[in-house]
């Protein structure tokens, strides 16, 4: 299964300068919305300023732009969150604060999927009475069409390819654009207008997590314009496009053909959404603080300049939330690169590293994240603290590291290289911090920046290159596509995913872990799966082939005048379905 590094990575503080630096400090802090008290992290586990009042406009801005507004062609996390305003997939994540937001609920479908005994056939019944914005009823054939059009990665390149790989497509199928009349009943069947059946190649227990993604949002065949469909997506949700200038801005207005009776999940409070695109990130932060803007839609968190200001002003800090992301920054230690073929040398690195220094490099406990001890982030099943390489105050233990070096036969240390993505200042800071702490035990690191576009295809993700160029440590980061441990871990710890190039798993090749993963796939009991994932995590850390850095966090600011604000664990940012305005 190919997991692509998802959109939350895009805007790592490369944008700066220009515009908006001139707002005087301290203005507009602390004026709480009427009836709600501002407090740090107020919307992480409960709804902040709850309200059922309808009307008003939510103003949003994006420092970049959508990969595409087309439900079959988008892969950014914030897009998955936002798209639920104008589209309905078979299932969706519940719009609820905290852990509750991790639950899947039926959306276009009446209930969660009905799986056959072997988990190879999944059936969904559609709700009746769901219509497009023009009044046409939605049928299961539209869902089938949407999935088969998204199959064509030449026309719609951005979206996830889970369904391409999971479903039993006919041989050499090219997608609905190129082969509109091909019989695809081996993959998808629509026995009637309200039923859709998916046939999988192999058993897959977490299929519900896949169909909550936007590629199952219905697309009417006669309105489909291929690459241009994103200019006018036919809405099935409570909002439809009013204006839409790709790359500049768009706005949503109420969809008159959306029937609340068919939709228990969406309060649909505001009348209107206005979204500006490609806005300077610092400008967005300043406007959020002043109240001119309510949501930074990409959810990456405040930039360095605003951060300094917000954290030094208690009134402003009260307006922020600091959610933990399902994202891990870590270092891979490929065991085929000498001297890391010896486990003691890998352990020496684990003991030598100053983890507080690593945390600072990522931006500190608030903007960076929490010190990680294992691979599974705390909000996911299977997480546990792993104490194998604990050192006093996390600052590294020179004695233990030296002992490990002795056992490795390199008592005076050794020289090796660390790779990172040149465009990312925080990865550079990470590499420099490691260089500093490892130097204390005589391990000399040379920094090797590589262009991020080719990082996995030509450099760190290519075993032959890694070995030839002695890349002993490789900075790596991973975020999940959906909040389920299998989806997060499989791509980075299963050795069978490793190919000649383009790998995200750079160092975990443990037969026992592979066996555990197979066991998890066949395990029906969720509690047992959780236990098995903990074992996987433990084994990976015992082999010391990865060195976890931080479980990432972001610092978000609640816009002025918003109601019903909360962060859900599935979105790891404000849930856009729940928002309202005063």
């Amino acid at each position, binding site marked *: 299964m190919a997991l692509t590094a998802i959109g939350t990575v895009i805007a790592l503080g490369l944008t700066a*300068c220009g515009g908006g630096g001139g707002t005087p400090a301290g203005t507009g802090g602390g004026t709480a919305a009427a009836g709600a008290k501002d407090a740090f992290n107020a919307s992480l586990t409960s709804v902040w300023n709850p309200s059922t009042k309808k009307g008003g406009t939510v103003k949003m801005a994006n420092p970049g732009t959508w990969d595409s507004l087309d439900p079959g062609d988008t892969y950014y996390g914030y897009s998955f969150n936002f798209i639920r305003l104008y589209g309905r997939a078979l299932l969706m994540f519940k719009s609820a604060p905290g852990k509750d937001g991790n639950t899947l609920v039926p959306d276009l479908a009446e209930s969660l999927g009905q799986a056959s005994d072997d988990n190879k056939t999944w059936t969904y019944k559609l709700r009746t009475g769901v219509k497009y914005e023009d009044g046409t009823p939605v049928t299961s054939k539209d869902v089938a069409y949407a999935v088969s059009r998204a199959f064509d990665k030449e026309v719609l390149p951005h979206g996830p390819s889970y369904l391409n790989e999971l479903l039993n497509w006919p041989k050499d199928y090219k997608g609905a654009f190129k082969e509109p009349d091909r019989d695809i009943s081996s993959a998808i069947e629509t026995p009637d207008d309200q039923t859709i059946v998916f046939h999988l190649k192999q058993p897959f227990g977490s299929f519900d997590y896949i169909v909550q993604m936007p590629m199952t949002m219905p697309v009417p065949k006669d309105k489909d314009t291929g690459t241009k469909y994103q200019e006018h997506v036919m809405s099935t949700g409570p909002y439809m496009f009013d204006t839409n200038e790709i790359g500049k801005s768009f706005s949503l207005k109420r969809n008159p053909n959306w029937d609340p009776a068919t939709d228990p999940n969406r309060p649909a409070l505001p009348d209107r959404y206005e979204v500006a695109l490609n806005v300077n990130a610092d400008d967005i932060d300043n406007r959020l603080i002043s109240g001119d803007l309510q949501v930074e839609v990409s959810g990456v968190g405040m930039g360095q300049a605003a951060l300094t200001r917000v954290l030094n002003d208690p009134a402003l800090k009260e307006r922020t939330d600091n959610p933990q992301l399902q994202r891990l920054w870590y270092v891979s230690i490929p065991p085929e690169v000498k001297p890391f073929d010896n486990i003691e040398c890998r352990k020496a690195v684990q003991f030598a590293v100053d983890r507080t220094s690593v945390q600072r490099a990522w931006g500190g406990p608030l903007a960076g994240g929490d010190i990680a001890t294992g691979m599974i982030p705390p909000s996911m099943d299977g997480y546990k603290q792993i104490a194998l390489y604990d050192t006093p105050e996390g600052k590294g233990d020179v004695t233990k590291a030296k002992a490990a070096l002795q056992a490795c036969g390199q008592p005076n240390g050794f020289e090796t290289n660390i790779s990172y993505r040149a465009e990312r200042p925080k990865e550079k800071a990470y590499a420099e911090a490691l260089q500093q702490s490892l130097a204390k035990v005589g391990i000399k690191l040379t920094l090797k920046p590589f262009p991020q576009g080719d990082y996995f295809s030509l450099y760190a993700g290519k075993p032959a290159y890694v070995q030839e160029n002695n890349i002993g440590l490789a900075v790596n980061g991973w975020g999940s596509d959906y909040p389920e441990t299998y989806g997060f871990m499989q791509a980075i710890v299963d050795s069978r995913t490793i190919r000649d190039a383009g790998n995200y798993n750079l160092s975990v090749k443990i037969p026992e872990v592979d066996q555990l993963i197979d066991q998890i796939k066949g395990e029906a009991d969720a509690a047992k799966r959780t236990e098995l994932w903990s074992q996987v995590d433990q084994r990976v850390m015992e082999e010391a082939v990865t060195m976890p850095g931080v479980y990432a966090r972001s610092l978000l600011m609640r816009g002025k005048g918003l109601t019903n604000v909360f962060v859900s664990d599935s979105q790891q940012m404000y849930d856009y379905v729940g928002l309202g305005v005063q």
Partner: protein
Amino acid sequence: MTAPLDVSGTSSEAPPETVLEGASGKAIAGRSLGQIAWMRLKRDKVAMAGATVVVLLIVMALLAPLIVSWLGHPPDEFHEDLVDPNTGVPVGAWGGMSSDFLFGLEPSNGRDLFSRVVYGARISLLIAFLATILSVLIGTILGVVAGYFRGWVDTLISRAMDVFLAFPLLVFAIALVGAIPESAFGLTGDSLRIALLIFIIGFFNWPYIGRIIRGQTLSLREREFVDAARSLGARGPYIIFRELLPNLIAPVLIYSTLLIPSNILFEAALSFLGVGVRPPTPTWGGMLADAVRYYTIPHFTIFPGMAIFITVLAFNLFGDGLRDAFDPRSR
């Protein structure tokens, strides 16, 4: 060049006849062109100020370890306890400036900014000087050859200069530096990168000097003293080395002084774009690139920025003064 003898020196205060006759009774010591230029330069206060700063910068670069051990901390040493862990901003006013940290600290990891600025001078000056020497060598040789031999040799070299001048140097440099292997030509790591930067900057800047030298040669080769040498049987190489080159030293010196600051800027630009010397080796351009993220903390931008500014200004002022001294008519 013989013309500008009339301007300076106490001798010009005396009427020409007395000079010729030696009225004062003393023997008249002839002054070389260099002596005259030096005399003019000494009177140019701005140029001398520039020269002083240049000398100080060179001393600073050479003695960087000594200066840093005396006034600062090792340039790569982290001082994280002096930085706010949440915001990454140094604790204390003015970016943590104190008698201990003269320029304050770098955000996030708390490296000593003073030490890094001082060490940054080494890379900047080393690359700028060596690249300039390379440009001057190639430019002078090809310029003289083109100007002296004229004809197809001149056409060939002049067209080559046009090609080089039309080259998108910055883009090319980024591509080339990005693609270099870990070791080549018996060099590895940073020394290879420095060598490559010197080569790129030096090799592609020679036409600027080459054109000037060619023009000077074209006019010099028609002068009487060259004719005289030729009529006495002198051949190409002799004329070039004994007659032309000594007369070209002034323009070479002037334009190399003016090329150095532009090379410093070019190196800073490459470091800023992340294709210069690798971190954590401090470079001024690289520090500026890091500072962009922290633009609300001005000290981080100001010190490396001022270092580049002062260096470039000093070289330019000195170079201008030098040119005026050798050739006052160009004023």
